[in-house]
C-alpha cells in the first residue's frame, strides 16, 4: 500500500495551456477534450490545427491515436480533463499496444467534474492516472504538481518520443468561458484544409 501525498495544487490551468501551445508551428496538431480543456485551448488562441471537442466524452485520446497514426510526421497533443480520461481508461491499453512516438496526452487534472457542479472525481480519492498509464506501458509518464514541474511537462508534451502521458495537478478554478467555434463540420473542414490542403 502506497501512501498518497496530499498537496494542494498551485498550478493555474490557463497559463499552463498557453505554455503548452506557445510558439506552435504547423507540426503541432491538437485535440481538446470536452469542457474546460476546450475553453483553455481557445483562451490560448484559436487555431485551425486545434480540433475542439464539445462532446463525445471519452473520445479525445483515441481521436489523437487515429490522427497520430495518419500523420506520423506531425506531433499530436491531446488536452484532456480528468473526467474525460477516467471515462476512457481502456484507451491507455489501446494506445500502449500501438506505441505511437508522436502522441502526447496531457491531463488537466483538477480532481473535479468542472462542468457539472464540481463533484469530486476518482483522482480526488487518489486514483493515479499517470501510474495507470505507466503500468499500461506508455513510454513516458509524469505528474506535475507545482510550477517548478511545468518546464519538464511542456518538454515532454511537445518533444519527448511518445507515447507521452503527463498529468498536471491544477487548481479547481472557475474561470470565464472562452468558447471556440462549435460547429463540428466547420472545425473538421478547416482542420483538414490546414493539414491536408483539402476541405
Amino acid at each position, binding site marked *: 500500500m502506497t501512501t498518497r501525498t496530499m498537496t494542494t495544487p498551485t498550478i493555474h490551468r490557463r497559463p499552463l495551456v498557453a505554455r503548452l501551445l506557445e510558439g506552435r508551428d504547423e507540426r503541432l*496538431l491538437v485535440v481538446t477534450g470536452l469542457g474546460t480543456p476546450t475553453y483553455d485551448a481557445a483562451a490560448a488562441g484559436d487555431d485551425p490545427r486545434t480540433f475542439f471537442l464539445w*462532446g*463525445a466524452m471519452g473520445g479525445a485520446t*483515441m481521436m*489523437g491515436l*487515429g*490522427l497520430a*497514426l495518419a500523420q506520423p510526421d506531425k506531433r499530436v497533443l491531446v488536452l484532456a480533463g480528468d473526467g474525460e480520461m477516467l471515462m476512457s481508461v481502456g484507451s491507455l491499453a489501446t494506445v500502449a499496444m500501438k506505441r505511437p512516438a508522436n502522441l502526447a496526452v496531457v491531463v488537466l487534472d483538477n480532481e473535479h467534474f468542472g462542468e457539472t457542479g464540481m463533484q469530486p472525481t476518482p483522482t480526488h480519492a487518489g486514483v493515479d492516472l499517470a501510474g495507470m498509464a505507466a503500468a499500461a506501458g506508455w513510454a513516458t509518464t509524469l505528474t506535475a504538481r507545482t510550477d517548478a514541474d511545468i518546464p519538464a511537462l511542456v518538454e515532454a508534451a511537445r518533444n519527448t518520443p511518445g507515447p507521452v502521458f503527463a498529468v498536471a495537478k491544477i487548481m479547481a478554478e472557475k474561470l470565464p468561458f472562452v468558447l471556440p467555434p462549435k460547429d*463540428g463540420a466547420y472545425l473538421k473542414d478547416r482542420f483538414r484544409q490546414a*493539414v491536408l490542403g483539402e476541405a
Partner: protein
Amino acid sequence: MSEAAPAAPTWPDDIYRALKAADIRQVAHVPDAGHARLIKSCEADNNMQTVTLTTEEEGVAMLCGAHLGGQRGVLLVQSSGVGNCINMLSLPQTCRMPFMMIVTMRGEYGEFNPWQNAMGLATEAVLTAMHVTCYRCDRAEDVGPTVANAARFTFEGGRPVAVLLSQRLIGAKAFVNE
C-alpha cells in the same frame, strides 16, 4: 472435426479486397469470430494499421481522428458492440465525417444464447436512430459489392454507414468441444 469439414467461406477475402480497393489504412476492431479471417488478412498487410480496442466506441473516435489526418479506416465489431458506440456516433454525425463499420450479427437466425438477443435485435434500430445508414448482407455473393458500395457511400458522400453481416450468412455460433 469430421473429415467432411466444409470449405472456409471466402466472403472475408471479398471484404478485404473491397477495403484495399477503397484505400482503407486503419482497421480498428474488437475481435469477433466472424471477423477472425479478415483481421488476420489486415494484420498481414503492411499498408494497414490494425488496432485492437478495449471497447468499441474507441474505434469510432479513432477513425474520426484518422479522417482529420487524411486516412480512411474501418471498424470491425459484433452487434453487441454497437451498443457501446451509441454516444460516440454523435462525433461523425455532428462533424459530417465519413465513418464505416462492419458488424457481424448475433441474436438472430439460429442464435442459441439468449443474452445476445437484446442488442442483436436492436442493432439496426440503434444505428438508424444515430443516423448511420445500414446495408444488410444475407448472402455471401453480396458481401464484396456491399462493402465496396458502403465505402463509396461514406467516403464520397460523407455519411456514416454500417454493413450488417447477418447470422444467416455467418452461421450461428455453436459451442462444441473439439
